């Protein structure tokens, strides 16, 4: 069964905070939920399906369902890391198509900034019963170092350069200057990126995304409800998800699950990369954007660096306007899980509600995608394609 057109995104909300020391994670979820429901013209009592990942207080959506006093027929706590919310768009669409629920709420929130989480510098902790834990923790992999490994291998294999990677940040910063809520609204140059300190070989400080508190939420509804609401009609026409394993030690770290989730979403939608007018691509690190552009088929393997350096990601002049809110690199990376904001900006573009300086004229077809967890040790990847009806 195809999910094409079986659900609409009727509400989307990005929490404006980037630092919330006086709010609990549960409150940030709730404020995001209410924001998205208000955007849709619906209320908590309309919600009968709820989707939330391990960013939920207690790492289980049950507690937030109780906090919000939801009356549910369907609950999904799938956690695939930062791409969970892209996955939830697909799962909510499937649940609506199957009649399991009519109004699906998806929420994300977190406060890593207030909690002083130095994600980029300190080695990552892993639960002791994780099967890969004994084979990673001893080597102190921190997130910047791991992405440094991907960047350096990509550079060796394809000739990708630090300058090309820097163009990804430059492109994001050109967009962020128009976003009043952006954490880093200042326009930067390639030189700024290359002159910023090397965090790990292959990764400058400005190749990294921001760490912010915040949240976001989406409301998906069945077609009949979407048409009854006074909002532009944005429908889900293609979805894809995967887990890209480390393949018993025989994997290639220059490749990502975008090679699986992208083609699945394009096939369901019946469109090709050339048809996409706007793309939200998860940008935890600049190299990750290049790797996904290649995996999705926007560029041949090894060609994304040149594509970015030619200015193609910049709205108004480039061939593929991308992350027009400033993305995780400059705007917002709430809870260190950027999949949610990818969907939200795609919805803004399709509704014509992006900032006029970055709005794609007549945007009718948008893609949002991202990875979850960490490449190299088994990561999730999800892609959704949305259409303005």
């Amino acid at each position, binding site marked *: 069964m195809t999910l094409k057109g079986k659900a609409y995104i009727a509400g989307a909300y990005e929490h404006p905070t980037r630092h919330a020391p006086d709010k609990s994670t549960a409150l940030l979820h709730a404020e995001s939920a209410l924001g998205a429901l208000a955007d849709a013209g619906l209320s908590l009592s309309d919600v009968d399906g709820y989707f939330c990942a391990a960013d939920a207080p207690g790492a289980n959506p049950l507690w937030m369902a109780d906090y919000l006093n939801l009356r549910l027929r369907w609950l999904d706590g799938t956690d695939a890391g930062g791409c969970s919310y892209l996955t939830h768009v697909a799962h909510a669409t499937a649940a609506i198509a199957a009649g399991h629920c009519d109004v699906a709420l998806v929420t994300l929130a977190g406060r890593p900034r207030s909690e002083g989480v130095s994600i980029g*510098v300190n080695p990552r902790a892993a639960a*002791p*019963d994780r*099967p*890969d834990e*004994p*084979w*990673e923790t*001893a*080597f*102190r*992999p*921190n997130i*910047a*170092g*791991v992405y*440094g*490994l*991907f*960047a*350096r*291998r990509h550079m*060796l294999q394809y000739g990708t350069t630090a300058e090309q990677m820097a163009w990804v940040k430059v492109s994001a910063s050109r967009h962020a200057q128009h976003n009043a809520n952006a954490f880093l609204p200042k326009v930067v140059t390639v030189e700024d990126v290359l002159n910023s*300190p*090397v*965090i*790990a*070989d*292959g*990764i400058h400080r400005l190749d990294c995304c921001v760490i912010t508190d915040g949240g976001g939420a989406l409301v998906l509804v069945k077609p009949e409800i979407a048409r009854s609401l006074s909002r532009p009609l944005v429908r889900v026409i293609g979805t894809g998800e995967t887990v890209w*394993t*480390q*393949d*018993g*030690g*025989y*994997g290639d*770290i220059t490749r990502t699950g975008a090679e699986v989730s992208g083609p699945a979403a394009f096939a369901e939608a019946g469109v090709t990369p050339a048809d996409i007018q706007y793309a939200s691509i998860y940008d935890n690190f600049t190299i990750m954007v290049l790797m996904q552009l290649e995996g999705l088929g926007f560029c041949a393997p090894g060609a994304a660096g040149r594509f970015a350096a030619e200015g193609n990601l910049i709205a108004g002049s480039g061939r593929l306007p991308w992350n027009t809110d400033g993305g995780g690199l400059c705007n917002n990376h709430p809870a260190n899980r950027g999949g949610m904001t990818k969907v939200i900006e795609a919805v803004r573009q399709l509704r014509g509600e992006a900032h006029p300086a970055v709005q794609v004229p007549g945007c009718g077809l948008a893609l949002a995608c991202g990875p979850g967890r960490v490449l*190299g*040790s088994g990561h999730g990847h999800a892609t959704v394609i949305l259409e303005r009806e």
Partner: protein
Amino acid sequence: MTDTPTAADAIAAQAASHPEIRPFWQAAAEGRFVLAFCTACGKPHWYPRAICPLCGHGGIEWRPASGRGTIYSVSVLRRANPPYALAYVTLEEGPTMMTNIVDCDLDELAIGQPVKVALRRQSTGLTVPMFTPQ
């Protein structure tokens, strides 16, 4: 009370949550670097599992590895004090593993460089496979 657990304590602690990989840590404590080879498809995999992730066969054999490999990628964590090298090393036997490169000039490390295993006792009491330039 000791600050550094004994090797036996550390192996027991590891085996409490991952009993099937105890032979790896026992061998490492004795100065041997072993790999899990599948008894059906014959291939070694990394990280070690008691069921072969390549063919699903439920039988492995711990065999001594050559300890030789090449750097598949390497990144020095410049902000750490002291800086250290995180790497992927492709073993002569085939699979690629995350590790650290030690006893080296961090600025001289390069992808493709030959390395050999250097088993290192950790503060946890476990002996883990790191690598050093050949």
